[in-house]
């Protein structure tokens, strides 16, 4: 018996990066990566994951040259969505959400962004409120 295609249901599954409408940002709750959005311990976890799962294709230089300039002005959520749905290339989506956040912590550290007292979370709502900005 044929299954009838339910378009709406399927489309929700297929959300792409930046696919969900940009949420309204309230200025008083938005923080910057410059304020310290990850912990040093988290960056060390991220470094281990990076060397095992990312370094095969991405040298550190890939993330440190003009990376921040490209991503400046957008919330961390977008970057998180891109890497968590497309990477690693041969096994996309195969890391846990927190592992992707740990990798991002390491990438931010590579870029000279300061660590802080609170870990970077994998929660999209919280990531939405952290803005990527170039170093000053």
């Amino acid at each position, binding site marked *: 018996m044929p299954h009838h295609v339910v378009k709406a249901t399927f489309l929700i599954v297929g959300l792409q990066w*930046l696919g969900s409408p940009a949420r309204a940002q309230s200025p008083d709750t938005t923080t910057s990566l410059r304020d310290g959005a990850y912990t040093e311990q988290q960056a060390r976890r991220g470094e281990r994951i990076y060397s095992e799962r990312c370094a095969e*294709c991405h040298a550190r*230089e890939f993330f440190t*040259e003009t990376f921040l*300039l*490209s*991503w400046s002005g957008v919330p961390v959520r977008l970057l998180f969505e891109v890497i968590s749905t497309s990477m690693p290339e041969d*096994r996309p989506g195969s890391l846990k959400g927190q592992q992707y956040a740990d990798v991002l912590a390491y990438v931010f550290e590579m870029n000279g962004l300061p660590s802080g007292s609170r870990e970077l979370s994998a929660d999209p709502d919280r990531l939405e409120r952290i803005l990527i900005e170039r170093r000053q």
Partner: protein
Amino acid sequence: MVSTLRQAIGFAVCTLALGFQPLQAQHEGTANGEWRYWGGDEGSSRYAPLDQIDATNVATLEVAWRWKAANYGPEPDFIYRATPLMVNGTLYTVAGQRRAVVAIDPATGETLWMWRMRENPRWEASTRKNYGKAVAFAEVDGRGVIYTITPGYYLAALDAETGQPIPRFGLNGIVDLHLGLGDYAVHPDSGVLAFGDITASSPPIVVNGVIVVGNSHDRGYYPNKRENIPGHVRGYDARTGMLRWTFHVVPLPGEFGNDTWEDDSWSYTGNVSSWAPLSADSQRGLVFIPTDTPTNDYYGGERPGMNLYGTSLIALNAATGERVWHFQLVHHDVWNYDNPNAPKVVDVTVDGRLVPMVIETTKQGWAYVFNRETGEPVWPIEERPVAQSDLPNERTWPTQPHVTRPAAFELQGITDDDLIDFTPELRALALELAHQYRMGPLFTPPSLADAADGTKGTFVVPGANGGANIPGGSSVDPETGVLYVATERGHSVISLVPGPQRESTAEFVSTGPGGIRGPMALELLKPPYGSIVAIDLSTGDHLWRIPNGDTPASLTNHPALRGVELPTTGKRSHADILTTRSLLFYGEGRRGDPWLHAVDKRSGEEIARIALPATTNTALMTYMFHGTQYIVTAVAGPGVEAELVALRLPQ
């Protein structure tokens, strides 16, 4: 030097007397409603002359069955690049990290049998676990045989009815493809290669009783050494598994082309694999081999010379492995322009003469069209001077072949005009970003991450993911002589650093194949980001171009683009295409939306779109079974485990 210069002029033809006879058009897509090869037919047309599903009813397509691949491996996959075969009323495909071979009922999706090889630790060491694109089929002594290459690089022959290995083939159905590769050390306990790597990511192809086996390697963006195993092509007896011949893609001393590897670089350079699927013309006894870049994708200073047969299209006599002709598409390749697509075999009338063609669609944005009997380009391919490298010890080749017709189907090279200009602010930022790297035309050579002129690397446009590429690639319609190419506007930025900086003994390696994003995480280049281009092979003219789907939500919802009128950009993703008698079907590919589009193949006009459970991941296929036409696609995506989806009209 004289001989290599002569080769540089263009095509090189080896005049082996194969006794070619004038032939009528034989390559007409799939036959009898079957889909016997990865690409439909042996010429990889991806064309089926079926028309039960047409413009009047395609909008009513519904899901007939879904087949879950998730349990055919140690853990579910979220990527699935396999295309089933349909032969004698059964579907055959591969699934999962161990590349399990499965037979499936074409009407219901029921699994009929499964076979997989227990091959740890060769499997553990494989650099291509999840890339089996399909199996191969042949009839031997009146019985169907399925051939597969495992991730650990074994060739297996299975009874198509039962899935059981065929005892008389190799050793109980298995041939170890490490054997005969050359004098490479192997760990005595594990059987894993102690030096270099080689495996396969595509099926073999069977031509007149010979199984032609290609291969694949790990990524070559920044190898840990300049040395690797060359991807020699081999032919095996389809009945016994005995090795019939070996063709050296890096020629040995005394063989044609060895002198294109200066300073003895032939003796240690590897890769030059044929990782894309192969195609054949069994009537002419030819197999067509598209090859990869030699070791170290972006630095050739340790392999001086033209480097035959790197980045070439080679026509071999399938019975003997002898070279009939070859054409090197890129000399001394340092752009990673390895050939990504199965060559297309088709007969088309040009200027009143029926031309037996073979076509390679490429990352660099050109379709190279040859007479497949002689290797002569159908339209001139001209050697033109190109920019030269300023890297230590790198001697890039002074000229490169430039296709004069058909026109390129993708943007080639980069100038300021190619950068986004949606708003003045975005434009300014895009210029600031791009000007930190070297920009130039196609074949601008890679440069250092800290070059003396202050630049951080060089744009390669199209880049590693651009142009035509791995998934769907292209389809050719033998009834109309139209080529359809799926292309993506991708670029790379190649920055080279000393090898030791990346734990490599190679002199220089790249920092990766990636490009850079534009400002606010937008694309750096102007749209269209993904397209399907129709090219008339009788004239070389482009007929139409359509975007790969709609403008993505990432653009329409982008805060920096509010109020900006956007064109339909398509997705930056390779469309997965299939052509039938009146329709062209395409899925948007992994970075697209989960639609199957049906298009009037004459005009490119969209007729219908059908929702899928997830985005298509690779080339589609179609077949007739018990009077019903089915379209099958592999889908997977974020949070959606790999599966096959079969569509048909309401019953």
